């Protein structure tokens, strides 16, 4: 909740600050001459400053709530209590009361610490000590070393001077102490607002992990091998999908018989998510490369077939007529009119297919694989290696984004006439 509020606050403040600055240094470009911008889709372009601030904000929040070393200390959200704290309890047995001190050492989880030696102190209730890991809590049988224990009818009745009953909670500054049903104090040191590394590691921990896995590898393969395997599967599966799908789509666009024959199959397979095919493909082809490539082939096939089909059917009849009137033969019309006219659609299909394939390969690797980006995060999650999981997600995102950019770039270079007909 608090991170969300901070996020909204940054959003609003950045908006006002940036628009103020932008107004002051306003450049009289074309867009600023428009009087109507609301509702004009072309007048809405992404504000670059907003994009940059948006990304920085995510990292800022991430760093704040993980106590990142990349951020100055004062920006950190309050961390969990670390160090030594004390509180007093008062026990009563019959009419006899005595007060003793409890020393609590709160230590980082990965540095095991013994409870410190403390002098027993006066009276029949002896002083206690306990060591608790950060973000953890601990039950302390305070009466165990006392002269009068639970068996003698002794019970804790006050914590730091305030009366307590089983179920009550008292704030002792560095922690809260709750009396359990049986009368045992349960000490919960302050967790602060930061996330525990096993839920969300700091950004630098993730970066460090990328470095480690890049140099040492993970489960017998280097990071590049894992990513390379995933990419290789996508490229090969897509290649075969396109190799079969495009001619199939052309045939469906040009021949009644092919259209009739394959329409039911394509229309049925199109809405089946490739992920639903994973179990069947595993049964038939196992979890090796063949199975994955068959899966990706199927994922790409229908998309490419449909793209090619609509590319062919989308040709304006006047263009075909014009070509006939200019003396072109059927083969020439195919090569010089129908194919180039369908290329933009095929490219759009290829971009969609690549995206779907990338998602499918990761999912398939999550289910079963020896190598691959999906396998890496799946295995890491089983061992609570959250840093590897997050690293994997970021890398998968970057690669998916990169594939899309590459396809867009290829589209701009290869089919510049897209949408210009």
């Amino acid at each position: 909740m608090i991170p969300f509020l901070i996020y909204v606050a940054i959003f609003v403040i950045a908006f006002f600050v940036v628009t103020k600055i932008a107004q002051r240094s306003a450049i009289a470009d074309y867009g600023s001459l428009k009087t109507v911008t609301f509702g004009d889709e072309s007048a809405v372009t992404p504000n670059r400053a907003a994009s940059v601030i948006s990304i920085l904000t995510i990292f800022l929040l991430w760093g704040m709530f993980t106590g990142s070393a990349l951020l100055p200390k004062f920006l950190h959200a309050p961390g969990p209590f670390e160090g030594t704290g004390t509180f007093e309890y008062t026990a009563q047995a019959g009419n006899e009361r005595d007060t003793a001190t409890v020393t609590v050492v709160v230590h980082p989880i990965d540095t095991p610490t013994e409870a410190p030696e403390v002098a027993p102190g006066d009276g029949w209730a002896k002083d206690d000590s306990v060591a608790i890991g950060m973000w953890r809590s601990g039950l302390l049988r305070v009466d165990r070393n006392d002269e009068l224990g639970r068996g003698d009818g002794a019970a804790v009745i006050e914590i730091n001077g305030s009366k307590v009953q089983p179920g009550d909670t008292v704030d002792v500054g560095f922690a809260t102490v709750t009396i359990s049903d049986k009368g045992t104090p349960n000490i919960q040191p302050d967790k602060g607002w930061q996330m525990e590394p096993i839920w969300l590691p700091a950004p630098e921990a993730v970066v460090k992990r990328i470095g480690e896995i890049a140099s040492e590898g993970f489960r017998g393969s280097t990071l590049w091998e894992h990513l390379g395997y995933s990419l290789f599967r996508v490229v090969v599966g897509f290649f075969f999908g396109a190799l079969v799908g495009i001619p199939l789509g052309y045939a469906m666009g040009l021949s009644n018989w092919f259209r009739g024959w394959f329409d039911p199959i394509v229309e049925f397979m199109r809405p089946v998510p490739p992920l639903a095919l994973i179990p069947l493909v595993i049964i038939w082809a196992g979890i090796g490369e063949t199975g994955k490539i068959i899966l990706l082939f199927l994922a790409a096939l229908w998309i490419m077939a449909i793209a090619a089909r609509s590319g062919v059917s989308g040709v304006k009849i006047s263009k075909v007529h014009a070509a006939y009137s200019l003396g072109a033969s059927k083969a020439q019309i195919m090569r010089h009119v129908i194919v180039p006219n369908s290329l933009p659609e095929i490219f759009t299909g290829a971009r969609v297919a690549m995206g779907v394939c990338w998602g499918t390969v990761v999912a398939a690797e999550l289910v079963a694989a020896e190598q691959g980006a999906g396998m890496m995060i799946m295995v890491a999650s089983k061992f609570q290696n959250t840093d590897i999981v997050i690293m994997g997600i970021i890398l998968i995102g970057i690669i998916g984004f990169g594939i899309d950019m590459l396809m867009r770039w290829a589209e701009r270079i290869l089919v510049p006439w897209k949408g210009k007909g």
Partner: protein
Amino acid sequence: MSGLSIQSISMRFDLPNGGHVQALQDVSLDLKAGELLSVLGPSGCGKTTLLNIVAGFLAPTDGKMILNGHEINGPDAERGMVFQQGALFEWMSVRENVGFGPSMKGMPKTDKAEIVDHLLDVVGLQDFKEKAVYELSGGMQQRVALARCLANDPDVILMDEPLGALDALTREKMQSLVLKLWKETGKTIILITHSVEEALLLGERLLVMAPRPGRIHKEYRLPFAEMGVDADLREVKKHPEFAERREEILGMIWDMEEEIMGRTEAAT
């Protein structure tokens, strides 16, 4: 023997709902080589259908057409078509579009380049040779379409509202260009238009068609095309006979449109 002869063409479209449309009924027409014919008529009277049949894109349900002594069946390079818009190949440059016909024939590169260069000069697009067609204005695109059609050296040029999408000024320039090309090349041209003025200016012969069923209503022989070849078209329009004919034909089409409206209103 030379020329286009359209012999009692009829065209009936069967509709999916079981009904049918008689788009053309017994249309006959003889065009001598080098004649310029403009066709006018209310919307839906079958002008496009007639042109598509002559081009060979549609087979008539009845009748036949003879061009230079042989019967027409199917499209052919001897009959070039200029569409209203959007029939250029946007994946080709201006040069490639104009050279499309010669390329298809397998003409040697140098001959082709010569033809393309000449035609681009004629339509005034030499500077735009390597541009993509979608970077050109509408008027320029129609000039490319004209040049592409001429590059094939067809016997007959068919134009379906070729200037319909242009602004008034560009349109006038294009009208002069069409007249110039007609005179220079001596092609037989059939031009469909919605503009009475354009039909008068660009028709040695003018055909007014009537709808339902589509048929020839009236034919004129006009002097204006010949006058307009080297003259300012605005001067031609000032001719007293021009205004007279325009009013006459406008009235005729207006009556037909009104009749259609009345009929559709009665039907609903």
